[in-house]
């Protein structure tokens, strides 16, 4: 008697493909949803918003004040919607959301500059969403300085500030234009693979138990490895298709570069798929129904999105949250993909990420195998 029958394994594999093809909705979900998600999120998410609605309370209609306003307007960050009169009107606009910024130019602004009184421009920002106003606020100082400097010619030259004794040069590497898509799109691959691989594997296995077909199956001489490999391999293929579609779309639609080693990407991506399938398998041993498998998968999705560094900077989280994040396989794959695609990483650069994923994967597989023996009985 052989330990592994290719014929039986092939039969399970074939059956799984036929079932996958007949279950149109799931099939559409596996192939269609990644594309839709990539399109929607790739184009929609922007952490560097421009054209934020801005109102002006202009108490000094001088040329310098107007120069400040037009400088802000041409910077793209601020879109001037009009004027307000009096502080109450400005507050109201911030509160009801009709403006993100209210710029208050004080009375006698230009005259006070000439007198060397260092008058203050007040920019009231709606910081209830720090990400939305953050980059505009950061850019504000430079914009105003430049606008004023250009207007301090002629009689005003004497109050123009001299050149600073040193300068800071910032070199934005790997994503010089600061395009959000360049950051989001590689991350999306990690999220989409985690979502589909974990959920679909868990559901596919639990479905067989829930419908009662697993009992008839294990009453035949089929071996557990033949069943498991036969059931899981089709979803590896799905993972490959998803990744291929994704890479093509990333290149053609979002112009995301692929600078690094293909081998490094391939190694990391295969390992990541295996880890996710093992996780789905583990879930299937913990739950009884397809509904529970779905719920369990959904519980995992939020931490994967929020703590992996996909949505928010990993370094910004407190230590305990980083610890949780480190235990999530997506965290490491996310870093790996960004390193390879954007930073041109080679195998040696991602060795740490591979090790981390392998370690997490081993723990998951170990628990899953221990659980599996019990559930057969």
């Amino acid at each position, binding site marked *: 008697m052989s330990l592994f029958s290719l014929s039986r394994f092939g039969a399970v594999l074939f*059956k799984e493909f036929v079932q996958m093809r007949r279950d149109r909705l799931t099939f559409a979900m596996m192939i269609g949803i990644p594309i839709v998600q990539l399109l929607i999120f790739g184009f929609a998410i922007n952490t560097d918003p421009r054209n934020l609605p801005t109102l002006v309370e202009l108490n000094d209609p001088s040329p310098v004040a107007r120069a400040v306003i037009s400088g802000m307007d041409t910077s793209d960050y601020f879109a001037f919607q009009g004027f307000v009169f009096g502080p109450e009107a400005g507050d109201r606009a911030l509160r009801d959301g009709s403006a993100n910024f209210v710029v208050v130019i004080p009375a006698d602004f230009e005259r006070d500059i000439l007198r060397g009184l260092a008058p203050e421009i007040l920019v009231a920002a709606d910081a209830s969403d720090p990400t939305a106003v953050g980059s505009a606020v950061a850019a504000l100082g430079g914009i105003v300085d430049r606008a004023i400097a250009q207007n301090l010619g002629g009689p005003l030259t004497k109050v123009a500030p001299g050149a600073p004794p040193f300068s800071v040069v910032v070199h934005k590497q790997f994503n010089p234009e600061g395009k959000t898509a360049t950051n989001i799109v590689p991350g999306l691959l990690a999220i989409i693979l985690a979502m589909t691989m974990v959920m679909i594997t868990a559901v596919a296995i639990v479905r067989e138990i829930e419908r009662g*077909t697993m009992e008839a199956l294990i009453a035949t001489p089929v071996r557990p490895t033949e069943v498991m490999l036969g059931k899981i391999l089709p979803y590896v293929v799905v993972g490959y298709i998803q990744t291929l579609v994704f890479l093509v779309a990333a290149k053609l639609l979002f112009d995301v570069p692929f600078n690094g080693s293909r081998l490094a990407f391939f190694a990391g991506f295969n390992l990541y798929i295996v880890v996710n399938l093992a996780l789905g398998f583990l879930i299937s041993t913990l739950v009884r129904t397809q509904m529970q498998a779905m719920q369990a998968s959904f519980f995992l999705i939020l931490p994967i999105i929020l703590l992996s560094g996909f949505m928010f900077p990993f370094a910004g989280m407190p230590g305990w949250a980083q610890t949780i994040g480190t235990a999530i396989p997506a965290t490491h794959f996310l870093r790996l993909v960004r390193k390879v695609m954007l930073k041109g990483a080679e195998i040696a650069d991602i060795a740490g990420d591979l090790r981390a994923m392998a370690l997490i994967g081993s723990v998951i597989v170990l628990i899953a195998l221990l659980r599996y023996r019990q559930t057969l009985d």
Partner: protein
Amino acid sequence: MTGPAISVKGLTKAFGGTVVVDAIDMDVPTGAIYGFLGPNGSGKTTTIRMMCGLLTPDGGEGRTLGHDIRTEARKIKENVGYMTQKFSLYADLTIRENLDFMARMYRLPKRRQVVDATLRELGLEGRGNQLAGTLSGGWKQRLALAAAMQHKPRLLLLDEPTAGVDPKARRDFWDEIRRLSKQGVTVLVSTHYMDEAVQCDYIAYIAYGKKLIDGPAREIPARVGLTTWRVDGADLIELEDALLADPRVEQVARFGAQLHVSSTDADGLDAVVAEWKGRNGSHHWVKKEAELEEAFIYLMATAADNFGLDGRAR
């Protein structure tokens, strides 16, 4: 003939501290149709699963087709056809794909011919490409039986195969079981239909994990030891109530326009009948031999009492 097809001793299984199967001994003679009876949740399915190596017993031992149920599950599986309680084929595969899949699980040679032959025998030749899920309940059961028989097992384990199937389909199904039995296949079938039990050569009755009785079907009534009188006439409903109130009467069962009045206390029951004959001449009393029907009703009632006494759930 060789030894028994199945022989188990002291088979015990507990789930989470609840003993589901409690020290069951059973011998299924080769070639017999063996009826496995008992109320829902009595441990029939668990016992069958242990017999074919799907579950490891917590205690006891046994052999199925000469193979140890603990260590040789694989050999048992290759020679046993097992049909589960639920429809266990793939509803989203076609009839042909299901049969082909099962044939591949047993690595049958000349698979195509085997599957074609099965379809022909089922009378489903033209419908091989129909999805199995679209079949009626009776057809599903026949298909599942055919799938379990494709590798020509010597032993067939059927776990409540006719639950929820209409009477005509049930009759057809039993014709098929008898046909297989004639070919020398041993059949162990669990059921709670009495009209199916009477078709078996041997019977075991279990309740709450314990075997109450087993043996050749024709010996069961005598072993239960019931004395039965048949009575017909007017006002049977009132008579039934009156008889049940009498402590010497243990059981009154209605069969059409007759009552079957039974008790293990033969003298007591005869005395009751004599009193009624003297009191009311409109009833017609005949003493009859106790049959399986009465025996099973009696066993079930006893089991229900057990349930009430020790108050176990399930």
